[in-house]
């Protein structure tokens, strides 16, 4: 378990995180301006920001609060679809695109938070693996429900139905979400700047939550629930706080993600997406916000870059093998000792160097 440093140390740590994000943003902007960034790399910037936000927010639940959630993509989905609907509905009301994007993200966050609250209140009573399976179930339910929803908007307002025939819109209205086809014709409002801004907001929220009185209560509950409850910390309240905050951030990330593509299907946010984000969190280090961020950026961008090569077929196979090996090497005492020794002689670096070391130039 990571020890809490002194107040000064934690705030410095937080400042470094902001600096990394701003530095990376400026660097990438400069590279983009100089035309050094390929199109394929440019196109992964916004989703990479979304996944970084997802990883940091999931870390609040899995790392900071110590509850395993396997349905984080469900909140992303809620945010994506509500965000898309909001962006289309506000088309005339808010013509300024960045403002509309911000409004869509806020609405996405609200829907995410609402989902988090509805799931969190009953579910946080469960422990460990049961909590995991219920969050998994929740993710599936969200995906399933969005697949049968038809949403349209016209002059009278927003229409929601589960039957395509019943979606009757007035003249000038548009159907936004079309059941299994997902959201089509969404405005592509998302920008890299918005992604970086959302990431900064996420860091701000997450770091201030962790370093607050509530955050310490959440950490205490994670480390020893019984001891924490016995000194009067209400477990339900603080677990729910972490869960809802995380869901809200995931919702905002979802809205940004949804508005980056002209069409989005519900199955994009399936169990595999939840697992992908969980892998980022675990490889980045539980409870380590910077680790989540860097792991998400590297692990999302690297496989995307490998798409172009002729090893594309083996891309996921290699990914799986690396995943298993990293887990074995970081968790098996014998291997850890052996490779620790070798590495010390070769690189004089910590075992996580493979994941974290490359993050410096991100």
């Amino acid at each position, binding site marked *: 378990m990571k020890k809490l440093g002194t107040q000064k140390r934690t705030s410095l740590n937080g400042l470094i995180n902001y600096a990394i994000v701003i530095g990376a943003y400026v660097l990438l902007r400069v590279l983009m301006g100089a035309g050094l960034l390929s199109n394929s790399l440019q196109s992964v910037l916004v989703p990479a920001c979304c996944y970084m936000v997802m990883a940091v927010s999931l870390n609040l639940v899995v790392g900071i609060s110590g509850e395993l959630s396997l349905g984080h993509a469900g909140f992303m989905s809620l945010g994506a679809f509500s965000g898309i609907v909001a962006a289309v509905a506000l088309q005339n009301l808010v013509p300024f695109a960045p403002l509309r994007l911000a409004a869509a993200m806020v609405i996405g966050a609200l829907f995410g938070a609402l989902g988090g609250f509805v799931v969190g209140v009953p579910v946080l009573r*469960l422990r460990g693996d049961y909590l*995991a399976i219920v969050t998994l179930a929740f993710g*599936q*339910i969200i995906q399933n429900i969005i697949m049968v929803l038809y949403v349209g908007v016209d002059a009278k307002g927003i229409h929601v139905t589960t039957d395509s025939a019943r979606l009757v819109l007035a003249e000038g209205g548009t159907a936004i979400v079309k059941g299994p086809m997902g959201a089509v014709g969404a405005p592509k409002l998302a920008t890299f700047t918005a992604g970086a801004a959302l990431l900064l907001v996420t860091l701000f929220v997450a770091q201030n939550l962790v370093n607050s009185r509530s955050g310490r209560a959440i950490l205490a509950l994670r480390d020893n629930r019984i001891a924490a409850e016995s000194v009067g910390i209400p477990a339900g309240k603080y677990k729910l706080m972490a869960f809802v905050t995380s869901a809200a951030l995931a919702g905002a990330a979802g809205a940004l993600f949804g508005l980056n593509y002209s069409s989005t299907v519900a199955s994009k946010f399936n169990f595999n997406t939840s697992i992908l984000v969980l892998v980022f969190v675990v490889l980045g280090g539980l409870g380590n916000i910077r680790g989540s961020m860097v792991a998400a950026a590297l692990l999302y961008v690297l496989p995307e870059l490998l798409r172009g090569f002729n090893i594309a077929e083996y891309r996921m196979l290699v990914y799986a093998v690396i*995943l298993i090996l990293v887990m*074995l090497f970081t968790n*098996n005492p014998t291997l850890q000792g052996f490779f620790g020794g070798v590495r010390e002689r070769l690189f004089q670096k910590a075992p996580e160097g493979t994941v974290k070391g490359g993050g410096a130039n991100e």
Partner: protein
Amino acid sequence: MSLLNNLIIGVSLGSIYAIIALGYTMVYGIAKMLNFAHGDVIMVGAFVSFFAAGSFGLPPVVGLLLAMAVCTLLGITIERLAYKPLRQAPSLAVLITAIGVSYLLQNGAQILWGAATKTFTPILEGQLSLAGGQITVTYVAILAVVCCLVVMVCLTLFTGKTKLGKAMRACSEDKGAAQLMGINVDSTISMTFAIGSALAALAGVLMCSAYPVLSPTTGALSGIRAFTAAVFGGIGSIPGAFLGGILLGIIETFAKAYISTSLSDAVVFGVLIVVLLVKPAGLLGKYVPEKV
């Protein structure tokens, strides 16, 4: 009559889920890990049987036995290479490793056998007509129910009467104490994986016979559903997995028939959530309060 027909379909589907869930539950009971790769072992089993029948022209029974043998070996290998080194590791690390194994199997299968969907030849053809043709039962459905009952009875006898079965129960209760009593914990866990994987192969062949499509991702969703069934009945409990599997099959079939085809998953998982809220350890699971 359609009600009875749906019930029969539900029970046979549930029997397949139950066989998969038994594998999940036994592994969870003893190794305390969510083995996400279990669903992909199902797929491997189905592929072995597919090629045994299709490419080598072996009789279906031989194909089934071959699939079970291959999966048993696969299960033991996975356990030895991926899970055994992590016996002392935090459960999340083991979970991620299991996910890695699942990716590995899925993508390995995709490279070896291609991503295209294949049509599986059922191991048993034909159906039984009852009540003047109003009720039809496929032979595969009957076979699934029979297999499930046989497996269930055998496992109950095995864990209750044999030395190895008792060792398994001892390990699942307290590994340290079991070791002190002279039980070889490692080989017991390997044995559990072997049995679970053999059952997965059986379930894979039955499932692909009932729903004859086969692709590298075939096992993933049925794996999750079966896992749900195991939790539903109370994970770690053998009768619980059986009950959970059958109930899940019936609920899914009824939801498909009477509510909506596309919402069946939502109904299944919704029922799961409600059950867990009322009985947090599943239907037949034991709730063990934490001791201070």
